[in-house]
């Protein structure tokens, strides 16, 4: 009976957000993770500042490139500093994050979309002045 219960063992217990499971390998492994994160984040930051100022990227594409670099850097922070993984011990944390990302996207994209539409459909200010005359 205890054998069966062992088979049904729930696996490792959940991790709190920001917590890392350091089995055996210990502190050196932890420091290595943060160092990798630091190097990647610094590289992406440097690339952002460089591409923003140089003519290396086609002008109108620069904002899109910068946003892509920023999203990549946020991913690096989430993985190496906040230790979010795809493991089953992180499911709850990832689900909450996914919901947060959904709301953030809705707020930002929705606002920009609606305001651009209003701007587009608005009577130009010069014509408003004429109508009031």
């Amino acid at each position, binding site marked *: 009976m205890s054998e069966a219960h062992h088979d049904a063992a729930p696996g490792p*217990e959940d991790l709190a957000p920001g917590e890392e499971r*350091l089995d055996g390998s210990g502190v050196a492994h932890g420091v290595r993770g943060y160092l990798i994160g630091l190097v990647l984040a*610094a590289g992406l930051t440097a690339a952002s*500042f460089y591409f923003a100022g140089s003519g290396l990227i086609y002008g109108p594409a620069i904002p899109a490139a910068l946003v892509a*670099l*920023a999203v990549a850097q946020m991913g690096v*922070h*989430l993985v190496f500093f906040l230790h979010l993984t795809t493991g*089953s011990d992180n499911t709850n944390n990832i689900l909450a994050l996914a919901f947060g990302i959904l709301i953030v996207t809705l707020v930002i994209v929705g606002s920009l979309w609606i*305001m651009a539409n209003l701007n587009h459909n608005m009577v130009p200010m010069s014509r408003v002045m004429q109508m009031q005359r």
Partner: protein
Amino acid sequence: MSLAEPMDPNRVGDLPIEGGEAPGRGLGGPAPVRIVVGYGFWIFILSDMVMFSAFFAAYAVLAGATAGGPTAKQIFDLNNVAIETGCLLASSFACGMASLAAGARNPLWFHVSMAATFVLGAIFLGLELKEFAGLAAQGAGPQRSAFLSAFFTLVGCHGAHITAGLAWLLTMSAQVVAKGFRADIMRRILCFTLFWHALDIIWVAIFTIVYLIGAGR
């Protein structure tokens, strides 16, 4: 139970397990306090990010509404922003070292890392306040245009979070001195590191959307 198929590790619901702690998925009762506290604080951080997203949306909508005042290109000093960014990234790294030191129950390493986190965060805050004071002095305060109102609200809100984080950091160092690495203190350290790393993530969005894209417009 003997010939049961392998159990879904993400199964929701109460099922008694023998020995060990509950894994935090409804199995064998409520999750340990550490997970509940960390998860609750994670929800707070995500709601904080939702609040920031509203400020980002306001800034993005109003970025061109300069009312004849200075534009983003004229007032932003990217060298200053680069130094701020470096300080905050290094501060986040030092904060990670502090959490590792706390995990290893090493007070010296913990306090040195927390001091480095504080100094780098304070340099960031000082540079930001210097920038704000300079803008206000040249007549580009928050009352000048909708663009500047949105700018000061968004970046100032992040700065206010950093200020609160620095106060919290000193509190945590003092609590470790006074009480040691007790379980409740460890939970507070976990929440503080979450908060500090999250502020760095928000800063990535700020330096990209406000400063780099703004200065290139």
